[in-house]
């Protein structure tokens, strides 16, 4: 499971630089759903620091924080 977690995180970071923005978004949701993933938060911050023009709302950072904490009760239902 750790390998899957690391792979998703790395894919997310690489996709944020090279591919489409949907992929880091999906990576954030997947990480947050499956684990208490601090890397999902970092990924959201990374996307915003890389691409966000100043003065705009950091959707990815806020979104990652919301998803990570909103997923908490759902995750509890599925995880041991």
């Amino acid at each position, binding site marked *: 499971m750790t390998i899957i977690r690391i792979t998703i995180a790395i894919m997310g970071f690489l996709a944020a*630089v*090279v591919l489409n923005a949907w992929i880091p978004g999906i990576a954030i949701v997947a990480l947050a759903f499956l684990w*208490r993933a601090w890397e999902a*938060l970092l990924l959201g911050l990374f996307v915003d*620091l890389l*691409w966000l*023009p*100043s003065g705009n709302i950091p959707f990815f950072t806020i979104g*990652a*924080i919301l998803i990570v904490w909103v997923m908490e009760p759902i995750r509890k239902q599925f995880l041991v």
Partner: protein
Amino acid sequence: MIYLSNDNRRQRRKLLLATLIVIALFGIDILTHGFIRAQVRVVGSAVWRAADGMVRGMTGSGILATRSKLARENEELKHQVAQLKERLTAVRAAEVENQELRTIAHMAALQNGVAAPIISSLKASPYGTFLIGAGASEGVQRGATVLSKEGFVIGEVTEVAAHQALVKELFASRSKLDTRVGTIPITLLGSGGGNAVGEAPRGSQIATGTPVSVPSLGGRLVGLVGKTEGNVSTPSVKVYVRTPVNIETIRFVYVVNVR
């Protein structure tokens, strides 16, 4: 059970700490006027250039495409062919680059500005932005207009670091722009990738290929009409506008500072 509960609590605390760190990093970045984002962008553009170089090398040299054929030949010939193809790709890439730079040099003779390479992906940003390899040290200012080699406006500089700048695409998704299609004023809504759509009053006669200009940018051209939908019986005429060049294939841009 007690162990699991403690472990859960520990993980939860770790997540809370990570959340606070992320918020703190964002705050520090704002307070330092983008110090952290400048570093992140240097790393990001280096990663993109490495990936871009690899993709160009692999697709251009034909090493993968002709592997089965080359396998039938002897090792020496295989090596020579690969080497020659690699050199040819490099020469072709340099030719394309030279051609683009020659066109931009011609543009430089007409107006003062800076030619800059694009150093990031043009499709990865969720905010319709991309990075160029020229910044404050090269004379790029915030609010500068970014032109394609054909002279069409493709974006505006929104942030400037020492040697790079962040450009927001003019037709970024959901962005609004007051334009003039021929003589008809139309507000265009960007849809990304150098495309935008707007609505003209009923019965407007707009031909395909009509140039689209922006009065607030001194009447500079931003695109051409690609298609129109509607006629005298419809409430309005839908106008589809696009930049004449495929924005995802551009490698150099020309930056003109607004005085």
